[in-house]
């Protein structure tokens, strides 16, 4: 479990990190909490030549409310979200999802920026951010740009981020009063979700149901047309393309999406 040789730079600021990225292009990789990148490097599935460590950058580690928007720094830890009053009150769905990630060690190390940039289709935070219609703020050599969460996730482990860019912020509408629930299914208490469903109001996002987190649009349409939860849940897996692997096959994942969507809608709206 020894990574291939690499160089290491501890970034002193976002600007510094951008400089180093600019210099090394796709030979460089940002290192945040290391909870996805380091395991991949140890298995030599990732072999970056240089690591740019942004894990300690205070300027990325914050959570604040900005009018009707909650702004989360790309360097905020899962544990920061769980402990944050702003998150709990203004975007409780994100607190619910963050609380369920991995175990305590993972939550103290792993960052929101890393989770989104890594873009595991079964990740907890990506689905929650998608259900919240979040906006991703990206800094790069050409300045700052924003991408809607719906456009950010492109494919398995692939996002709209370029190799010389940094995810600096996530902006989500403060909808504290909105009904929400995060329904997550895994075989054991510690483990990635097989399928998870994030519900906020009438928006429904799915984790583990395709190459990216997905909106269950057919189900949302049923709700928009005044249909009931059961009817909406029936269509939760419509158009999804989950994988079949040694944990479960696609059929079962689709079944789970329907059951969990029904439960998430019921729990969200019974509260």
């Amino acid at each position: 479990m020894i990574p291939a040789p690499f160089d290491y730079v501890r970034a002193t600021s976002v600007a510094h990190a951008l400089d180093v990225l600019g210099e090394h292009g796709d030979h460089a990789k940002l290192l945040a909490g290391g909870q996805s990148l380091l395991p991949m490097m140890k298995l030599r599935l990732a072999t970056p030549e240089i690591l740019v460590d942004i894990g300690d950058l205070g300027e990325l580690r914050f959570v604040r409310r900005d009018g009707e928007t909650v702004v989360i720094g790309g360097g905020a830890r899962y544990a920061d979200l769980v402990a944050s009053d702003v998150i709990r009150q203004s975007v409780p769905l994100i607190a619910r999802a963050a609380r369920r990630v991995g175990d305590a060690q993972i939550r103290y190390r792993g960052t929101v920026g890393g989770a989104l940039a890594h873009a595991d289709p079964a990740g907890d935070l990506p689905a929650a951010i998608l259900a919240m219609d979040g906006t991703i703020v990206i800094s790069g050599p050409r300045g700052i740009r924003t991408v809607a969460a719906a456009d950010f996730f492109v494919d398995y482990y692939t996002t709209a981020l370029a190799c010389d860019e940094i995810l600096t912020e996530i902006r989500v509408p403060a909808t504290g009063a909105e009904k929400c629930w995060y329904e997550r299914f895994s075989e054991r208490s510690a483990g990635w979700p097989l399928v998870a469903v994030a519900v906020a109001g009438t928006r429904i996002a799915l984790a583990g149901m395709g190459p990216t987190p997905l909106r269950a649009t057919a189900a949302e349409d049923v709700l928009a047309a005044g249909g009931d939860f059961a009817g909406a849940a029936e269509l939760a897996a419509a158009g999804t393309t989950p994988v079949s692997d040694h944990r479960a096959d696609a059929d079962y994942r689709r079944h789970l999406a329907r059951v969990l969507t029904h439960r998430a809608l019921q729990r969200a709206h019974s509260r």
Partner: protein
Amino acid sequence: MNEPIRRRPARPVTVDPVTTPRSTSILGTRVSRIEDPRLVTGASVFTADLADRRLAGAAHAVFVRTPMAHATFTTIDTSVAAASPGVLAVLTAPDLGLPPAKPHFGAAMVEPYLAEGVVRYVGQAVAVVLAETEAQAVDAAELVTVDYRPLPAVVDVSEALQGKALLFPDVGTNIASAQDTAADPAFFDGCEVVVTQQIVNNRVAPAPLEGRAAAAVWLPRNSGYDGEDAAVRTPPSRSENPFGAGGSGPHAAIDDDLRLTLWLPNQGAQTVKKDVVDAFGIDADRVHVITPDVGGAFGAKFGAEPDHIVIAAAARVLGRPVRWSETRSENLAVMPHGRAQYQTVTIGGMRDGRMIAYRLDVTQDAGAYPRLALETPHGTALMAPGVYAFDRCEVSTRCVLTTTTPVGAFRGAGRPEATAALERAVDLFAAEIGRDQAAVRRRNLLPRFTSPFTSLTGAVYDSGDYPEALDRVLAAADYPALRAEQASRRRRREDVQLGIGLSTYVEITGGGKENATVQVHSDGSATVFTGVSPHGQGHATAFAMIVADRLGIPVQKINLVWGDTDLVPRGGGTGGSRSLQLGGAAADGAALAVAELAKRRAGELWEVDPADLVIDNERAGVSVAGIPDRFVTFAELAAEEELSAQHLFAADGATFPFGAHVAVVDVDIATGKVRLVRLVSIDDAGTVINPMLAEGQRHGGLAQGVAQALYEEATFDEDGNPLTATFADYGIPTAADLPTFELLDMETPTPYNVLGAKGIGEAATIGSTPAVQNAVIDAVSYLGVRHIDMPLTPQRVWRAIRETE
């Protein structure tokens, strides 16, 4: 309900009637583990941590492992790797300088140390890279190329049995061993009901916290630090170490005067030594094996594996110490797996619940090479009829090779498979005749027996009270209330249904011999040398208690020495739950012998007949009966002359722990997800020396048993690629997945040793797996489900439910 049986065999300890008699023995009490301060403060030394001077300047070994499940090759190109930074050598099979590998377990198929022209499972070692640093070795290992020509993978055991693709074409079959019984056509005659079922006893990875590792060095004999005094003498510092950093270079002529010291985490240094001596074909006194602290083993660290032999050979070829410690992925893909049986049970009986005939057919998936899996079906066959009074029992077994990780021993090794098959069969029979599972068990259990009982398969059960065990767990679980709760949930068609699962079991432990030496020192402390080999269980505490009970030396002053073949030349190691009942009994015998020796010495000192002397356990010494002032401590006697004695204990037979478990599960009908709610167990392993240690073994055993039932399975795709080679993919449960275990005590002593102890290491694993499996199937039985194979993953349970719709 009866009181638990708590009877201790009469002990021959003489208590001085004048001094205050000892009212209580330390045995049976919860003495805290004396080994824990070291283990929990990081003061322990595992093989990878060794800072022994003899290993100064060690090269680091990394194996080149094949990514192919089955392939031939002609060339291994090591040139680029050999030329990369820090690399000292890249060795392939011919470089090892070893005599040809020998067959094991009577099989015709021979496992090489490094692959020779053919690989037979993903992870098999084809070469070993030796470099100055581990990182350099890892880098170089990626540069070794092999011209593989793929052969068909053989993953499925039925295909392996058909033998279309052979792992060893010369042998002409994939079957490594077989004990087939001709089926008796009249076997089920007279039975009103006969039920049959195919069952997969899932393959699991032992997954100890510490993986495999080794460190090896060959030193000139009599160099001053390879001999018996190695542990005490301080070798010269690294700079003056003639055998360290510099060495004699690769491919140095093999000096006949060199002696191997091999460190490795293992369950039996003496067994390893024998394996190493056999592999190298050298005299036994040229091999010294040491097992430092061992971070778990579960049966999978017994004897030397090919990788260990390669490390020892590499150190000889290189003329330099070599160390190796595997990664987690290597561990999951290469350390022998356990279980992996394909069973067919057929059970016949009467509608009134009487079970008459039981037939068990076992195909053992042995993996790519003959390892301990060739032995496990014997245990399965022996324990096939278990705790029940059948009229007839018939067993056939065979071991077949597949292009997968070799299968070895894992916690219970053969007996859990027997119990799992039988307990499923009983539930299937009960379901077929529409009777309650507890009632069917109760009706067919062997009655309590106090003198040995010979089973249909020839096992001689030493002592047991199976009905008592079942009655007590049923009462503790409140079985009728659970059934009422289940009925009400079913009536109300609740989303989460309740399942209640039972198992009653008997297993076999111990048997054979073990030795111990007790030596008392002039400072009042004592050392116990044992041939068994702790790796987490708490032997140091248990053995100290036994010796303290005999000699009155405080537990804290008793040191346990094990796992060093120079210090303890003979020993059977720890496995098959043998340690306390054999090694503990040997320590007890050695302590008694020390007491006798002390009396003889004191008798000589005072010119008194030793028969008039007594052991004073209060003051750790000897006095004249009735004259407490006439007293000498063991320490004083030891100062005069070495006070030490050895004892070889030979048991009259194996012992048969037994028990009963009740598992209660919630099953989410919509998703198939199982939550274990309760696990009530009796695991009667005879007299308990330290309840806390016994409970520790039961807790771990229950957890691993539950893990097999619900979570764990080592799997391969159809090309033979392992799918569970990381902990992200191989799902071990954590405490959060398990309920608080409800342990009931029951102690039925064995007559076969003075302690009355049977083995507790594997019992709870054996009982819990089928109880949990039966509980899940019970939860969904009202839908018509009769069987689901383990592990009972949500998807499997859901599919079984759906198939009834």
